[in-house]
């Protein structure tokens, strides 16, 4: 393969990998905080994409401008899901692990049905915004601008998550993660922290959805395409580790791109899964997971 092609494939992998990382970040955050895997995570992303589409269709506003609006909407939705469902799922006496898996799974099916109810089964695209279909040509290596913007936003979101962890709230978050029961003794409202955690997790995947809507189609099942990759990213990076999500996301993007380039495109996810299983053999809690 010529060098330019290798660079092009690597660039594609990197840009996609950063999106995977941001989708996974929210999932990882929620897991780290309360040991819950949200199986409706992809559906939250899908809702964010539909929100962009709906507002764009109504007002013609550029998707990038909608970023704060949709992020806030998703933040609220995340908190509502926590208050309405997850808090209950965490308070059950039996099979807590299974209950939370299947509550979020049922929620995922419900959201898919609801999306179809509102928007129909048709694939939608947000077109004609100022970055749409434009690329940067760096000596024969092309960088599509919507993806570049998505990557920058993704890095900014990670920086933002890092900043949050330095604040008073972040310390409470960390304390809650360390010892759920002890924090109550020092006056931290655990329930509020959890709800905020869900808000942040949903907000993060909402940001990913907004950026994705700039170059990817929207449909009721779009969350499913990303969900499995997101779970693998989180487990590969280590549940609860933000840095892990970032590294694993990029790694998966690259492995996927090069498996497709050098082997079979239809088996590119097998390449990703194989790397994941290999890593897990040596590090059962992922690259950055606490042992």
């Amino acid at each position, binding site marked *: 393969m010529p060098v330019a092609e290798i660079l092009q494939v690597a660039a*594609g992998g990197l840009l996609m990998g950063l999106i995977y990382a941001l989708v996974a970040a929210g999932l990882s955050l929620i897991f780290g905080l309360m040991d819950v895997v949200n199986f409706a995570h992809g559906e939250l992303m899908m809702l964010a994409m539909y929100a962009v589409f709906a507002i764009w269709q109504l007002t013609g506003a550029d998707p990038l401008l909608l970023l704060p609006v949709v992020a806030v909407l998703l933040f609220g939705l995340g908190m509502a899901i926590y208050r309405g469902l997850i808090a209950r799922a965490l308070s059950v006496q039996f099979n807590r692990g299974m209950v939370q898996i299947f509550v979020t799974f049922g929620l995922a099916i419900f959201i898919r049905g609801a999306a179809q109810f509102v928007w129909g089964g048709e*694939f939608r695209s947000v077109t004609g915004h100022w970055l749409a279909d434009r690329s940067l040509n760096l000596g024969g290596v092309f960088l599509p601008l919507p993806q570049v913007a998505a990557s920058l936003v993704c890095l900014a979101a990670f920086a933002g998550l890092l900043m949050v962890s330095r604040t008073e709230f972040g310390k409470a978050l960390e304390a809650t993660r360390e010892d759920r029961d002890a924090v109550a003794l020092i006056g931290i409202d655990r329930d509020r922290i959890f709800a905020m955690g869900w808000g942040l997790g949903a907000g993060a995947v909402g940001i990913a959805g907004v950026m994705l809507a700039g170059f990817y189609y929207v*449909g009721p099942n779009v969350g499913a395409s990303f969900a499995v990759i997101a779970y693998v990213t989180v487990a590969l990076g280590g549940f609860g580790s933000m840095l892990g999500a970032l590294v694993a996301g990029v790694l998966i993007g690259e492995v996927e791109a090069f498996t497709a380039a050098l082997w079979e495109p239809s088996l590119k996810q097998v390449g990703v899964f194989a790397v994941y299983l290999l890593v897990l053999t040596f590090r059962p809690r992922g690259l950055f997971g606490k042992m």
Partner: protein
Amino acid sequence: MKRRALLLSAGALAATGRMARAAEDVVIGVVYPLTGNGAAVGLDAKAAYEVAVDIVNGTHAPIPMLMGQGGGLAKLGGAKIKLVFADSQNDPQKARAEAERLITQEKAVAILGSYTSATGATISQVTERYEVPYLAADNSSPSLHQRGLKWFFRTSPHDEMFTQGMFDFFRDIGAKTGRKAKTVALFYEDSIFGSDSSNVQRKLAQAAGMEVVADIKYRAASPSLSTEAQKLKSANADVILPSSYTSDAILIMKSMNDIGYKPKAMMAQAAGFQESAFLAGAGALAEGVMSRSSFALDATKSRPAITPVNTLYKAHNNKDMNDNTSREITALLTLADAINRAGSAKPEAIRQALVATDVPGDQTIMPWKGIKFDASGQNTLGTPVMQQVSGGIYRTVWPFELAVMEANWLV
């Protein structure tokens, strides 16, 4: 007066013991994915069948085509067709269960379906066992009619016929312009549709002396197709032959554009490329894309029924007929005509009438030579057209006698 005539004909039918059913609705079962992955196509299909059944049952100005006069099934005393829809969710097991339910519970005398080939495979198996005709409106896998089924009929051309049309077009346009396509790149999803389509394309490319310079099977509904686009760019074939559903069709056009690649020519195996969501989603990137089609919306001169039928469809579903919906309407009209000719809603009578079907092309909305089934139940007269996107819509470019514009052939 009219009522008396009806009663009289009912009386005539009574002699053959069919009176009880004479004016009853004739139930036809329709199985499509109405939720889940194929829902968009399934919902369009539902709208298409509803329009077609209104044409058969309703009172309206006569449309110059098969069953276009309205007023129900004349030979069954004006009986109306009643459609019962069922959701397969694109799952072969559910498609099978729904076909059984439609036959045994809803008393459907025939089944129409079903978009994907996998569901077509199980539905046709049920109809074979219950001895009820299955009319495949839009399943295009060649494997379906090659199983020796007695109750299977397919109005639509299958992938081999479609692909043969593509290569005939390459030959004709090459002769006409002096620019022959010498290389092709195959790009197809990892499904039954993709593998059937690519198998035929590989075979016919070889027969036409064209070199396959890229053979790319990709994972359907992937988050990214950027590496796949890079492979297509590296191969830089004269013609790219994609077989994709809507979402991937949009994504590959964007992904090729992202890396600064504008293919010389693309000839799609219809499917997603013929959907309005593709034209909307890919926008300007879709310009110049070619696709085979079993339907030509612009062939209004030779097919006068297209305009009135499309007006009805557009009023009902807010979009123009396309490759799929036109085939679905045609399938229903063909079936209604067979039931009418059979003069009976008995499955065996309908089957025999289907076998005897011989409809000239100008009696349909399709650009086909006509509808006539061979021993395997395949319509042998379904001839495809080639179309090209120009100004945001598909326009027919081949066969040349049906063309509304010159193909923009940049090979």
